[in-house]
Every structure is written in C-alpha cells, then in structure tokens.
C-alpha cells in the first residue's frame, strides 16, 4: 500500500545520522522532525535564522518574533542560536548543514529539480530553495510520485523552470525510494505492498530495477 505523508516522513527520518544539522523544507519535510530514530541526535536549522528549532509552542505561548522559514510559530531547544539571514546562508552555502529535505514538483534522472514556478500559473518565488539545492551535499526530495493529473513527476528531463541542476541524490515518494546515479533513477526500496510494476508504470524517467527490491521497514 502506498505510504501517506507520515510514512514518507518516517522513511526519510531513517536517513538521519547522529550529529547532523538538518534543514527541513515546508510540507512533508517538516514532518520528518517528528520521527527522529532513537539514539540519534540532530539539530534543525531554519534558513530565516535559527539553529536548534524545537516543537510548535503550546497554545497561548506563541511568540511572533520566533518563527521558522515556513512562517510557523516555533520554540527553541537548549543550545539554540539566532543569527541573521546572511549567516544562515553562510551555513548552508558553506556546507555546514549535512542534510536538506525538500519538496519538488519535478525531479529528473540527472538530479535536476523544479519546485518554484509554473509559467503563467504560479510564481511564488524560490525562497531559499536555490541556495539549498546548489549547496547541500545531501539532498533528499520528499514528494508524491505523480501530480494530481496522474502524470509522473519522476522524469527524464524537467519541463518546469529549474531550481537546481544535478543536485538531487535521493527521492522518497509514497511508492518508493529512488537513488539518482549515472544519469538514471535506481529503485532502492518499495513501499510495503507496492509492486515493482506499479513503480515502473508511474516512473517516466529511466529506472534501473535490481533483481530484488526490498520493502521499506517503517
């Protein structure tokens, strides 16, 4: 059965390594913070200028001066720090953040990503996404395998304006974990109960399928 958003977040949380600084984008990526594996300690950075983000505040304790990059009210953990946006992107550009998780509209088999603009329809802007994808050593895209029209978002080549080129290494969807290597998608894991055939049928890009494709353990 295909994963729900929580399932995608849980699977991505398995990628976390002890001691990592992590930047989570808006949407599914934000949920990853709820499923940090036991024994793993990570710190969350938000690009507006905070390290050591904690959970949402209790009702009535919201501080308008304390938000994350999604403009949500948040709290801080012990050991947190605040800084300006130039320093924040110094951390990102300088590769001090070990993992970036973000959503996408399209990903291509050479690692291109598009997530900021649909010409003639939507232009919200790239925010920090272009800096993040151009800089992070380790980018995981969290997204649905297909768009609402049922078209694959896992493509030979992106059709939308790009956010970054050749930067995505791993994609986690409701159906599968894919790695991008040598200009192709590689099927690493499938969601519990999801068939390899379904994944193949919903993937437009070139997909390398090994003989045995393990199921995710969540």
């Amino acid at each position, binding site marked *: 059965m295909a994963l729900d958003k929580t399932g995608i977040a849980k699977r991505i949380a398995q990628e976390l390594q002890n001691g990592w600084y992590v930047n989570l984008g808006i949407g599914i990526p934000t949920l990853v913070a709820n499923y940090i594996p036991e024994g793993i300690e990570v710190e969350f950075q*938000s*690009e*507006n*200028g*905070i390290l050591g983000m904690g*959970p*949402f*505040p*209790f*009702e*009535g*304790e*919201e*501080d*308008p*001066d*304390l*938000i*994350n*990059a*999604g*403009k*949500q*009210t*948040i709290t801080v953990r012990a050991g947190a720090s*605040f*800084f*300006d*946006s*130039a320093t*924040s*992107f110094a951390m*990102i*550009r300088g590769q001090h953040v070990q993992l970036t998780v973000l959503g996408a509209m399209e990903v291509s088999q050479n690692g*291109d990503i598009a997530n900021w*603009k649909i010409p003639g329809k939507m*232009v*919200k*802007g*790239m*925010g*920090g*996404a*272009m*800096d993040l994808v*151009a*800089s992070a050593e380790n980018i995981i895209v969290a997204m649905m395998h297909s768009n609402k029209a049922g078209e694959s978002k896992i493509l030979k080549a992106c059709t939308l*304006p*790009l*956010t*970054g*080129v*050749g930067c995505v290494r791993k994609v986690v969807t409701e159906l599968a974990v894919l790695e991008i290597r040598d200009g192709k998608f590689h099927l690493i894991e499938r969601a519990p109960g999801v068939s390899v055939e379904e994944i193949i049928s919903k993937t437009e890009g070139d997909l390398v399928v090994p003989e045995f494709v393990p199921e995710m353990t969540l």
Partner: protein
Amino acid sequence: MNKVVKDPAAALEGIQDGMTLMVGGFGLCGIPENSIAQLVQMGTKNLTCISNNAGVDDFGLGLLLQAKQVKKMVSSYVGENDEFERQMLSGELEVELIPQGSLAERCRAGGAGIPAFFTPAGYGTEVAEGKEVRVFNGKPHILENALTADFAIVKAWKGDTEGNLIYKATARNFNPMMAMAGKITIAEVEELVPAGTLDPNQIHTPGIFVQRIFQGEKFEKRIEQRTVRTKQ
C-alpha cells in the same frame, strides 16, 4: 552622536518617488510596521522595494501594494498575497526574484564594499541568465552583484541613541544586512535607551550603520502561520 528623531515622519524625511528602499523582515516577522504605515500616509510612488517578502494583503508591504506605491519588488518569496499576484500578472508590478541566500549576501556585500561575489545558488536556472559563470573546485558558480538602496528601513527590538541595535530571536533575519546597505538607514525600535545602556559586546548592528532611530508607537506583530500543539 545622537541619531534620535522624534517620529516616523521625521525618520522618513527625504524619501521620494522613484527611490529604492530596502525593508527588513521575513514574512511579517521583524518588519518596520510604523515606517510602513508612514510610507502609506506619505503616498510616495514608484518605489522599488527590496524585501525578502511582500507582506500579506492587508499588512506589511502589502499595504504599499494596495496603495499602488510600488513599481518593482525585489524578493525571494512572494506567496500569500492576492493583490500582489494580481498586479504582477496584469503587468502593473515588476518583480525580480532572487534566491534568498543571494539576496541576503548581496545586501551584505552592498554594505561591505564588495561589489560582486560568486555563489553556486541559481546556476543552471533562470536566475543565472546573463550572469557570468565560473567553475571553482569543479563546481559552477555565478557572479552576483551587490545591492544598495537610497534608504534602508529596519526594525529592531532595542536600540540606543547612537543607533546601536539588538534584534530579538528570528526577527533579526534581513535587518542587519539591510542596515548596512542603505545610503541612509532608518531604525525603528520597540525600546529606545540611552547610549551606554546596551552591552557593547551584544550589539547586533553597530550604530555606524544607522543614521536615524526612533521608538515605534505600536507594534501589532501579526502572526502569519499560528501553529501550536496542545498540552498533553
């Protein structure tokens, strides 16, 4: 060196039609509310506003958009604003979108006398069009220019009479770099104290970057995305 002016009107004196303004804040967090209200009252037109976001329909820079005072927005993210979208799609409003980190660094560069720098952000995208590309350590980078403004308007938590500023939490965001990059920088603060009150070791923006300072009368501090959890 006393930089205190008595009110927003005195602070914003000299801002004229067609000027370029930097306005601090991220979303509605850390925006100079009192100065924006004053700008609306002044009715200054054809402004170019450099600001990470464009406010919401009825708050922040959205108020300037409503009053059609803005000719061009230079931002990284402009969602959450219907009037903005309408003006942009109709061609009334010119928009230049810049990656957030490049925007922050370009403001800092403008204030720091660095005319241009290389960054990997935006390589291979629309943002790179017309820009020089150069490979460093095997990785392509694009050349970005510094940004400056006729006036920078920032918001701080505490400030002293010499213009030293301390921001609070994530309300710091773009304010320090914009304070550096304004030909004239105006700071509105929640609390204005005499010089010598703030610890010199804890100043976020040294007074040298600030030309005028005033204590804002009222800060609404609207929350854009109120997210909470319930007590167990």
